[in-house]
């Protein structure tokens, strides 16, 4: 290994580093990009605010995994706490804890980006060789249906019974043990996360990876980035150690994700047109729980093997949604359940017979759907606001109705909503109860695992942050390479789009050095 991993927390004095390219973030965008840049002989420094955690630390206990591997110790949420934000924070970013589902970007999304947002040159054919390359490296392939767990069978069988589309999913795994713990860090390195693929590839060729190093501020002189100032963090307290780390790159890339990335630009005063942190999209998730007479054991087995895009396009004026499944471990299930006391015990006590479906709303495509906002608090912390429009509340309602029907069709005789006082549906005749329930913030559990937008790409420098080569409109040696550049959400799990876009961006970033 020519490269090195440096723990910034151990710095005893201030440090200044020069390099060709500095990449902030080691997730799906940063890692793929870094591997390509070192391959081209460039000197690359990567800053990661989380730690370098590997399978030797993954004991698969929720009490350890969420504080260790997620943003804000697993407690990130919108400002009103209405939406729980599941987002990774360690070497590999969210790829270390995601549930492995991979899709190529839908053609309809590329078309929408071109026609509505003026994105040029990014489409299915220009990205095809890059999709091919990342699919090869990350072993992205269809997961055999015969390995699907019973929770995924509910989705498949329920959809088939109703005549709705459902299909096996593709996953980035090699030697998957089918254990069901993707969200707590893969215990066997079967998941082809960045920390076992592109990050080691980059380290082999000379990457300098600084961990526990939070990029605080980008220093710009004229129209040029001259430095990025980082704070080493004490991993115990997550507070700055007081040392300073200054990186002086020829080119700076933000790959810090759709929440921390916009926050970095905002802290740096780089928001000339007011578009940074705007149009933040979350694929907001609602879920339905269902009890079955047979064991489901949804805590075991690949969490996502089957998906349904039957309702992804619901026609004009409506927000579409797609259906998948989560792993059902005790803490995650308890978090999703909104009540407390004996009702909560009653719910959890039947965990082995509990199946859960999730619906992800496709935000950002309707005219006027601006999604959420990333901003800064006075004390410098990031803040996420996400109002729920009438159209989104309608999508939540339709999602819950569809999921309940699938669960009933798959044999459940007790379907429960995740309202604080759950709506119980025992047959189709009860569906009007679910339809009449309230939908919106703090009315039921809402999650997000897909954070997108906030540094949108586009043709118009007044309405977007980077151009169609992912370069900042005003600062030519600043790029953004992650899911924050999406002008809308995707309607599919975003990781593979980010991998391919970062792979495509390698030549563009390299050419800017």
């Amino acid at each position: 290994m020519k490269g090195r991993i440096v723990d910034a927390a151990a710095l005893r004095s201030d440090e200044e580093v020069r390099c060709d390219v500095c990449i902030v973030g080691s997730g799906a965008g940063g890692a793929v990009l870094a591997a390509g840049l070192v391959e081209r002989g460039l000197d690359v420094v990567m800053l990661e605010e989380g730690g370098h955690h590997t399978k030797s630390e993954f004991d698969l206990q929720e009490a350890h995994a969420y504080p260790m591997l997620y943003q804000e110790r697993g407690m990130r949420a919108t400002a009103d706490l209405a939406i729980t934000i599941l987002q990774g924070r360690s070497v590999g970013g969210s790829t270390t804890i995601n549930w492995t589902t991979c899709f190529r970007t839908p053609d309809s999304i590329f078309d929408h980006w071109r026609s509505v947002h003026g994105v040029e040159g990014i489409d299915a054919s220009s990205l095809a060789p890059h999709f091919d390359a990342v699919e090869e490296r990350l072993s992205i392939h269809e997961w055999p249906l015969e390995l699907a767990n019973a929770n995924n069978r509910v989705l498949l069988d329920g959809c088939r019974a109703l005549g709705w589309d459902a299909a096996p999913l593709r996953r980035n795994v090699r030697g998957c043990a089918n254990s069901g713990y993707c969200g707590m860090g893969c215990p066997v390195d079967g998941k082809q996360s960045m920390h076992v693929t592109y990050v080691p590839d980059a380290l082999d060729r000379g990457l300098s990876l600084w961990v526990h190093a939070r990029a605080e501020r980008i220093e710009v002189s004229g129209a040029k980035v001259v430095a990025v100032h980082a704070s080493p963090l004490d991993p115990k307290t997550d507070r700055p150690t007081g040392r300073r780390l200054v990186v002086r790159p020829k080119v700076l890339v933000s790959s810090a994700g759709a929440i921390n990335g916009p926050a970095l630009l905002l802290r740096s005063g780089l928001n000339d047109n007011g578009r940074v942190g705007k149009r933040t999209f979350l694929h907001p998730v609602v879920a339905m729980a269902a009890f079955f007479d047979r064991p489901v054991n949804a805590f075991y087995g690949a969490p996502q093997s089957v998906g349904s895009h039957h309702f992804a396009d619901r026609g004009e004026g409506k927000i579409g949604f797609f259906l998948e499944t989560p792993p059902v471990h005790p803490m995650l299930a308890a978090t999703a359940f909104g009540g407390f006391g004996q009702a909560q015990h009653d719910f959890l006590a039947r965990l082995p017979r509990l199946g859960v479906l999730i619906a992800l709303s496709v935000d950002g495509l309707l005219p006027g759907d601006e999604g959420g906002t990333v901003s800064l608090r006075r004390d410098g912390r990031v803040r996420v606001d996400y109002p729920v429009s009438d159209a989104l509340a309608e999508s939540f309602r339709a999602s819950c109705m569809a999921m309940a029907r699938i669960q009933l069709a798959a044999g459940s005789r007790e379907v429960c909503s995740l309202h604080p006082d759950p709506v119980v549906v025992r047959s189709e005749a009860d569906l009007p109860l679910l339809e009449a329930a309230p939908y919106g913030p703090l009315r039921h559990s809402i999650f997000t695992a897909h954070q997108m937008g906030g540094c949108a790409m586009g043709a118009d420098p007044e309405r977007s942050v980077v151009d169609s080569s992912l370069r900042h409109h005003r600062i030519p040696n600043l790029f953004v390479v992650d899911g924050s550049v999406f002008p809308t959400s995707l309607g599919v799990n975003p990781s593979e789009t980010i991998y391919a876009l970062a792979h495509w961006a390698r030549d563009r970033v390299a050419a800017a050095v």
Partner: protein
Amino acid sequence: MVIRYGLGGAVALAAGGVGLSLQRTRPRAPSRPLRALDERTFSILAAVADRVTPPREGFPAASELQVAEKIDELLTGVHPAVLEEITQVLHLLENGLAGLVLDGRPKPFTALSPQAQDEALQSWKRSRLGLRRTAYKALRGLCAAAYYASPEIYPAVGYPGPPDFGNVAGGPR
């Protein structure tokens, strides 16, 4: 795992009644020295945890699983402002004067009967005030997450626990 920012409005409500509480908080002794919370706040949190996950056959008491101590430990790694917000929300719940004004409940939360504590939590859960639902979600989420992430409750929920891949010295804890 649920709590976080954004409780500023609730905090303002709490501040109005600080020092005017009609009775003192019933103290609870932590099982080890506190690392993030002060003793009064810990006592309120422990009382909330008792009701979020009450004991029953197979489900140990929250105090037995040291739920409030686990949350105290988790809070050593959050931004000081988050710790402050959680502290103030707990004080708001405890505050007898605010309870009297808003709910006709003159006693601190920790001095209420278990049934009355449940009613107080229900009223926050179903409140028309978004801020109270936020505060309920924060406190319930913290307590429920710490409780149900404890391996001691795995038998009661029928969860055999994670498989052992021999990754961690001594196997899964």
